[in-house]
C-alpha cells in the first residue's frame, strides 16, 4: 500500500514533537507494525520522508491504523508518558542506529525499550533532535544542564584510579636504546625492580641502608621526612600531614622529580629535573650538589621571575614549619634515586655482556635479582650517596667587602664601595672573566643569545640530537620531552638574581659557577695564572649589585 504518512508525537497542549526527522535516521530497515495476534505488517515505502522505522506502538491503535491507513494522511500518537518527550532527543541520539522508537500507552506489554548507550552518542544528531523539539525552556534547561553534567561525570570517571608510581627515566632509556639497541628495553622491568628494592615505592619509600652497612644514606636523609613528603596528600588520624611534595611540588616537578609535571610545558624556564643530580644554586662548592641549607633557602625564598614560589608562609606557620625541611629531604632523596636510575641505564647496563643482559631480562621482581647484581647496584648507590655527604657552605673569607646596596650608599664606606664597583666594571669587561660574551658589554644579557639551555644538552647535543632539526627531535617529542629553549643570560640591570641577591650568594655563584648552565666558575689566581683573587671577585659582586641600582649611581660611576 502506498500513502503519505506524517507521524508526529503529541507532547503537550502547546507543543508537538515531530518524529519524522528522527525516523529519517534509521536506514535499511523497513517499517513494521506489530499487531495483536503476533503478526507484523510491513509498510512499503510510506513516503519519501518516512522510509525507515522499526518501532513498536500501541497494538490496538496500530491495528486500527492499518485498517484505515489507505486514507490516512496524518497520525497523532498520544505520548505514553511526559518524560518520553523530554528525553526523546537523548534516546534518539544515544541510541544511534540501533535505537528503536518505543511508544507505549496503557498497559501494553509488547514494548521493548532499547537502552541508550553513551558509546553511540552523536553530538550533531543530538543537537538536531534538540533543535527540532520545541522545548519548554523553563523545564528543559535545568534538565539539560544536569544531564550534561552527568555525562561529563561519566567521562571523568573513566580510568578513575590512575596508577601512581615513579615515572620511568625516559631520557636514560632513550639514550641506552639509541647507543646499543632495542635489547635494552627488555631490561625495564629489571631497572624498576632494582629501584623498588633500593628505594621502595612512591607510597612507601625506603632507604637502602639496611641492605649494606656502608651506605649511610640516613646520615643525609631522614626517612620519616621522606615518608611524610611522599604519598597522597592528606592527614592521618593523629593530625600528621602527608604527601607534602605532591601537595606543593608535583604540578611542576612531577611525581618523580623529573621536571615533567603537568604544567611543565607551559613554564619558562622549565622546572628542574632532580634526577640529573645537578642544581644551579649551591654554596657547597664547584661541581657539588647543594647543601640542605641551600635547598631550604631556595624553597623558602623562591626564585624571582620564575614559577618557583616562595614558601616562606609555611616556614612562618607553626603547623607547617617542618614542611620545608621535609621537602628539602625529599628533593635529595629523589635526586639520589634518579641519579642511581640514570647510572643503571647509562653505566651499569652498557657494561654487561649479552649473556648477562639476557639473564637480567628475565627479572620480574626484586627476588629475581642475583647477589652479584645486588652488590653492583649497592655500589652505585654508595657512589651517588657519597656526593651528597659532608656538604657545607664555602667559607666566606672576605665578607667585610660585601656591601648591602643601596643601604650602604649613605655610609662611610660609600667611596670604598664605589671604587670596588668601578674595579669590578673593568674586570667585567676584561678577557679574564669574559663576562661580556654572554651578559653583553652593558650587562643587558644580550651577548650570546643562540645557545640552548645547558640542562637539555645531556639528551640533545650530547646524545647526538639537534632539537632544531625536526626529524631528530621527533622521537624525543614522542617521548613527551620538553623542547629545549634558548638560554637567556641574565640582564643584570634588573637586579633579579635568581639564586638570591645576598652578596655572599652572588660571590658563590661567581666563584663556583652555576652548575648546569654556561656560567663558568671564575678561575682563582692560586690555581690559574689568569685567575682572580677573592677581593677581585668581590669587586665583581659589587659591580653586579651596582648595576641593579644604576639609576641611583649612574652619575657617580
Amino acid at each position, binding site marked *: 500500500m502506498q500513502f503519505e504518512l506524517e507521524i508526529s508525537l503529541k507532547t503537550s497542549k502547546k507543543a508537538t514533537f515531530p518524529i519524522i526527522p528522527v525516523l529519517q535516521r534509521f536506514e535499511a530497515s523497513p517499517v513494521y507494525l506489530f499487531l495483536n495476534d503476533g503478526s507484523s505488517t510491513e509498510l512499503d515505502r510510506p513516503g519519501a520522508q518516512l522510509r525507515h522505522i522499526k518501532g513498536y506502538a500501541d497494538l490496538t491503535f496500530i491495528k486500527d491504523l492499518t485498517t484505515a491507513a489507505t486514507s490516512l494522511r496524518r497520525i497523532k500518537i498520544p505520548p505514553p508518558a511526559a518524560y518520553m518527550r523530554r528525553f526523546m532527543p537523548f534516546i534518539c541520539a544515544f541510541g544511534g542506529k540501533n535505537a528503536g522508537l518505543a511508544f507505549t500507552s496503557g498497559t501494553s506489554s509488547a514494548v521493548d525499550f532499547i537502552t541508550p548507550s553513551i558509546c553511540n552518542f552523536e553530538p550533531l544528531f543530538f543537537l538536531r533532535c534538540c533543535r527540532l523539539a520545541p522545548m519548554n525552556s523553563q523545564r528543559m534547561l535545568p534538565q539539560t*544542564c544536569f544531564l550534561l553534567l552527568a555525562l561529563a561525570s561519566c567521562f571523568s570517571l573513566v580510568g578513575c584510579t590512575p596508577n601512581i608510581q615513579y615515572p620511568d627515566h625516559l631520557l636514560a632509556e632513550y639514550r641506552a636504546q639509541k647507543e646499543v639497541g632495542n635489547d635494552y628495553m627488555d631490561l625495564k622491568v629489571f631497572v624498576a625492580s632494582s629501584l623498588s628494592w633500593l628505594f621502595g615505592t612512591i607510597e612507601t619509600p625506603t632507604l637502602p641502608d639496611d641492605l649494606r652497612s656502608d651506605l649511610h644514606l640516613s646520615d643525609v636523609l631522614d626517612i620519616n621526612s621522606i615518608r611524610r613528603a611522599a604519598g597522597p596528600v592528606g592527614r592521618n588520624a593523629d593530625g600528621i600531614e602527608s604527601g607534602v611534595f605532591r601537595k606543593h611540588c608535583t604540578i611542576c616537578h612531577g611525581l618523580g622529580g623529573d621536571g615533567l609535571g603537568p604544567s611543565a610545558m607551559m*613554564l619558562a624556564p622549565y622546572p628542574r629535573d632532580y634526577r640529573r643530580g645537578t642544581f644551579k644554586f649551591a654554596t657547597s662548592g664547584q661541581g657539588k650538589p647543594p647543601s640542605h641549607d641551600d635547598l631550604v633557602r631556595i624553597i623558602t625564598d623562591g626564585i624571582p621571575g620564575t*614559577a618557583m614560589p616562595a614558601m616562606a608562609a609555611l616556614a612562618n606557620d607553626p603547623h607547617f614549619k617542618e614542611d620545608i625541611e621535609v621537602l628539602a629531604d625529599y628533593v635529595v632523596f629523589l635526586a639520589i634515586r634518579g641519579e642511581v636510575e640514570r647510572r643503571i641505564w647509562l653505566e651499569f647496563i652498557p657494561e654487561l655482556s649479552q649473556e648477562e643482559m639476557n639473564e637480567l631480562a628475565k627479572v620480574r621482581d626484586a627476588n629475581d635479582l642475583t647477589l652479584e647484581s645486588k652488590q653492583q647496584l649497592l655500589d652505585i648507590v654508595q657512589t651517588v650517596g657519597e656526593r651528597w655527604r659532608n656538604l657545607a657552605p664555602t667559607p666566606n673569607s672576605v665578607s667585610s667587602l660585601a656591601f648591602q646596596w643601596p643601604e650602604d650608599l649613605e655610609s662611610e664606606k660609600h667611596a670604598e664601595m664605589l671604587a670596588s664597583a668601578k674595579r669590578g666594571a673593568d674586570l667585567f669587561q676584561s678577557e679574564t672573566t669574559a663576562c661580556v660574551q654572554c651578559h653583553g658589554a652593558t650587562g643587558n644579557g644580550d651577548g650570546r643569545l643562540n645557545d640552548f639551555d645547558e640542562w637539555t644538552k645531556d639528551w640533545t647535543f650530547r646524545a647526538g640530537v639537534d632539537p632544531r632539526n625536526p626529524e631528530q627531535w621527533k622521537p624525543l617529542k614522542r617521548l613527551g620531552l620538553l623542547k629545549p629553549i634558548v638560554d637567556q643570560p641574565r640582564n643584570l640591570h634588573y637586579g633579579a638574581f635568581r639564586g638570591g641577591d645576598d652578596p655572599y650568594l652572588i660571590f658563590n655563584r661567581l666563584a663556583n659557577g652555576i652548575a648546569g648552565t654556561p656560567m663558568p666558575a671564575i678561575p682563582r689566581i692560586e690555581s690559574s695564572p689568569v685567575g682572580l683573587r677573592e677581593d677581585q671577585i668581590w669587586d665583581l659582586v659589587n659591580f653586579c649589585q651596582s648595576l641593579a641600582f644604576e639609576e641611583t649611581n649612574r652619575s657617580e660611576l
Partner: protein
Amino acid sequence: MLDQHSSEPFYCRTRFWSLCVAITIFPLIWAGGLVTTNDAGMAVPDWPGTFGYNLFLYPISTWISGPYDLFVEHGHRLLGAFVGLLAIALVAVAFAKQTSKKLRLWSLALLIAIICQGLLGGVRVLAVQQRIALIHGCTGPLVFLLASYVVVLSGRSRSVAIGDHLSSQAILDAETAINPIDASRLKEGFMTRGFHWWTTILALSTIFQLIIGASLRHAEPTLKPVGFMAITHLHLTFATIIFVLTVVTFLRSWTKKASYWNEAKRYSGLLFLLICVQVGLGIATWFVNYAWPWSGLTADLATHVNELKGFWETMIVTGHQAVGSLILVTSFLLSLAAWRLSQFGAKNHFIKQVRT
C-alpha cells in the same frame, strides 16, 4: 484569582528561603574554592565526622587555632551542612498547599542535589580520589544554578499562573488597546531572531568552561604536560568563545528599546561585567600560579616572586573560580529570560501592566 492572591505570603516565604539558600551557596563555593586552592580536601581524613567528633561538636577552639587547611575544610563542611538545613526549611515552606507543584518539586530537587553534593564530598574524602573532587567542584556551581532557578521560580510563579490562559494574540490586542504607541515595540519583543539560541550556546559554553577549568584545578599528578597544555588551550578557546558570545548578547539586548527586554538587558549587562572581571582574574590566576613566561620583559616581572598560598594569591585563584560560578548562573538566567522573551515575553509584560 482569589486563590492566587491568598497564596502570595507562601510565595514570599519560599522566595525568602530560596534566596537564603542561594545566597549561602555562594560563600560555600568560595569555601570550596579555598579548599582546593589550599589543597585542604584531605585535611580531615574522616567523614562525616571530623577527627572522630560529630561534625557540629568538633571543638571550636581546635578548629580556629588548628592548621589553616583544617580550618578551611571543616568550615566548608559546616557551611555545607548549614545550606542543607536551609534547603530543608525551603522544602518545608514550599510544601505548603498553596504553592505550585512545580515549585515544590524543584525545591525538593534542590534539597536532593545539595544532599548528593555533600555525599560526593564525603566520597571524595573516603575514597581519596582527586577525580571525585573534580566532579564535586563541577557540581557545586550547578547546585548554585539550581538554587538560583528556584529563586526565579518562587518569584514568578504567581504572575505566570495568572497569565497562563491568555494567548499571545490576545495579549497583543489587549496591549494595543491599553497603550497603542507601544504596540509596535511589543511586536518587536517576539522577534528575538535567534537571541535565545545565542544565549543557550553561551550558557552551555559556560558549563564546558567550568568543567575544563576544574580539570586544570584538579589536574592529576600523572597528567602529561602535553595534556595539561591542551586543556589550558581549550580553556582559553572557550574563554574567547564565551567573551564573544557575551559581547554579542550584550549588544543585541541593549540595542532593543522595548521594556520587556529589560530582564535580558540586566542579565547581559551583569554578565558582561562579570566576564571582564573574570578575564582579569584568569590572567592573574595564571600569573600567581605559574608566573609569566616572559619574565625578562621588565624588571618588575624579573624580580617578582610568587608566594605559595599567600593571601592575594589564594584570593585571586579562588575568586576566578567563584566568579566562574556566577557567570554560569547569570548566563543560564539570561538564557531563561531570552527563551521566555521569545515565548512568553509579551504575556509577562501585559501582566505587569495589568497589575500596575
